């Protein structure tokens, strides 16, 4: 398959340190799960082209460091994001309690219209669970978030998380709630979009991207 795509969506993965953000990104773009991952330094960038509702869409994903000292750097990448995975660790009450701060940052620094999916990661560690599904589901409902539990280790719901978020973004574009033409929407028309006469400059292909996975 080719590098062509109709839309490009900018995505954030945010949440406390150690919740598995990098493992979610790596699982989604096809890398192997690693148990003893070191902390992300700054931000990490990955991308993948997926098919959503018949439209080829490139997801440009920024995985942000959870440590406090990187806040000023990671926040500069909130601007213009169309979607975000807000990640907590189901075995860590602290990471769930910190969600309000992360959510506030996302809505003020990115955009009020950003599509946010709450992700409870590490659901494979059922015996260590500290946050119940229903409690998190209620938090998501109260804050108008979508919600999924995942396991980056087993791969459960990882792709679904990104696709669910992307579908919602696409739906908002089609209903006019999100305007790709507006600066900062986090959405760009892609190389093969019929809505543009001249295609924008083609973004670089990342080493982790593989054509056979499209």
């Amino acid at each position, binding site marked *: 398959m080719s590098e062509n795509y109709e839309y490009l969506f900018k995505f954030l993965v945010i949440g406390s340190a150690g919740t598995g953000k990098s493992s979610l990104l790596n699982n989604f773009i096809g890398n192997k799960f690693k148990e003893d991952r070191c902390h992300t330094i700054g931000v990490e*960038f990955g991308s993948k082209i997926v098919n959503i509702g018949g439209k080829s869409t490139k997801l440009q994903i920024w995985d942000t*460091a959870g440590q406090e*000292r990187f806040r000023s*750097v990671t926040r500069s990448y909130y601007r213009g994001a169309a979607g975000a995975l807000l990640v907590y660790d189901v075995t860590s009450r602290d990471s769930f309690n910190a969600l309000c701060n992360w959510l506030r940052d996302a809505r003020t620094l990115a955009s009020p219209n950003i599509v946010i999916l709450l992700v409870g990661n590490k659901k494979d560690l059922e015996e260590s669970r500290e946050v119940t599904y229903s409690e998190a589901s209620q938090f998501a409902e109260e804050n108008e978030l979508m919600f999924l539990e995942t396991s980056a280790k087993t791969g459960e719901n990882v792709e679904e998380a990104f696709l669910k978020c992307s579908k919602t973004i696409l739906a908002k574009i089609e209903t006019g709630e999100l305007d790709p033409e507006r600066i900062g929407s986090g959405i760009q028309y892609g190389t093969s979009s019929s809505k543009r006469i001249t295609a924008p400059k083609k*973004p670089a292909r*990342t080493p982790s991207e593989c054509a056979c996975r499209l």
Partner: protein
Amino acid sequence: MASTSKGDLPASSDVQENPTNELEPGACPESVINPTDSFEEFASEMSTSLLERKSSLTPHSSTISEIQSEIGQNDKEPIKTVKSSDDLQTDDSVSASASTSNICEQNGDEDDDDDVLDYLQSPELVNKEKHVFILSSAGKPIYSRYGSEDKLAGMCGVIQALVSVVEDQNQDILRSITTNDCKAVFLVKGPLILVAVSKSNENETQLVLQLNYAFNQIVSVLTLTQLNRIFEQRRNYDLRRLLSGAERLIDHLLIFMEKDPAFLLGAVRCLPLPVSARENITNAIISACSKIRDLVFAILIAGNQLITLVRMKKYTLHPSDIHLLFNLVRSSESFKTAESWTPICLPKFDSTGFLHGHVSYLADDCQACLLLLTVQRDAFFPLSQAKHTITEKLRRSNCLTSINDALNRNEDLPTSNPLKYIGIPEIRHFMYKCRFTAQLFTSDPLSLERLQDYRIRHKEGGDISTKKPEKMSDIDYVKKYRKFCNQIHAKLIFRSNAEDTILVWVTNGFELYVTFDPLMEKDHAIKAVDRLLRWIKKEEQRIFIMNAPTF
């Protein structure tokens, strides 16, 4: 049985007869690395007075700002290098000074007191050959190489008390405490106190050098400006909160300082490569990056060695900053799976602010890591594009293969096993540092397997070792050289005994350390060294980076 050249004029004369400009391998008109990291600099650290030291840690000018103004970024948002006080105020306040409350706590509860004493004497701590402790000037624990910082709070209070008593009452600086079996070295750097306790044969200067590296690692993560500001605002701040996740960097740095003589000598190893391969790599980088205005350095490294360094005109990197970059890369597996965009402070280049680095490995099948360092925080995509362009060019010109061959110490390469090619069987080991360029070459070059071995072995490591290693590597020889290292004056030292023969030759242009078989005669050793230097000279274009390319 030891002797020196001072007492033996004929040998000294023989050496002087060699034309020095022909036998200074690695020397070249312009150095890719700033070679001023040296013992002299650390020696000056040892001799500064209290007042001089306090003023020297105040940054005076910003190299990053200088670059930004030159390329016309005056209207850009200034780099935010300081945390806002709002963030700091979210902390719960601590009412008493840490050292006072620690002392009170120790007196308050007998059980706790006993527990702490037991912990300080536990095998976990006592059996280690070396300790490094970092605390704030208020006595709060920040980092400990071994053990739990929480359980060391009492001891940190004692350290802080010792340092402050010497400062306040004697108007002096506490440097070291020596006992029968170990030495404790103290270094005060602005708001931090660093202590190394060692039972090895490292001298005071060598330990201070290591503490300086640990301090620079913290500055690299935070910037000096931010570090100072934090403690100006909150003397009792718990710095561990900001350093969360960076302990790994300090751990790895301390491990490698014990393994790699490059730190001790203030030098950098280069990956030996054919001249044409290095030129192709450098040219690929220059052509891909020349239009990116605010790129300051492009650095390609592999296996703790430098492949090439391209720089903005006027600016150079010091070995100590390069070692921090090596440490960043080797401590982080995540750079292998994604492109990273990270703030990096290089303390010698500019301790006041961050460069922004695009960090990524060239390819899945090539373990070379490319760092593109810029003053522009929004430059990710141009640098990402440049990186892919570079990788494609290097693949087409077979440079990735050349790098892999060198990294895996392909046996056909003469620099993979120098002793075999030099053909002097009496030589067991050598280290050669070119002083003009701050580059190091040894008879036991690093390989990926060696690096991995260091990482694995050290998880169990650090205990005092009594058994001799079956196969000696660089660091085992370096332990013997340590007592000769870091001398200022040019000299020739020759020591021969039943175990081995060591020759150390230091001139203004180079430092050479050689280990021979036991009971080697001096004349033979001198002739062997002459042949060794000629071989290094013959291979210098492959071993060293012989120019200083710019964008």
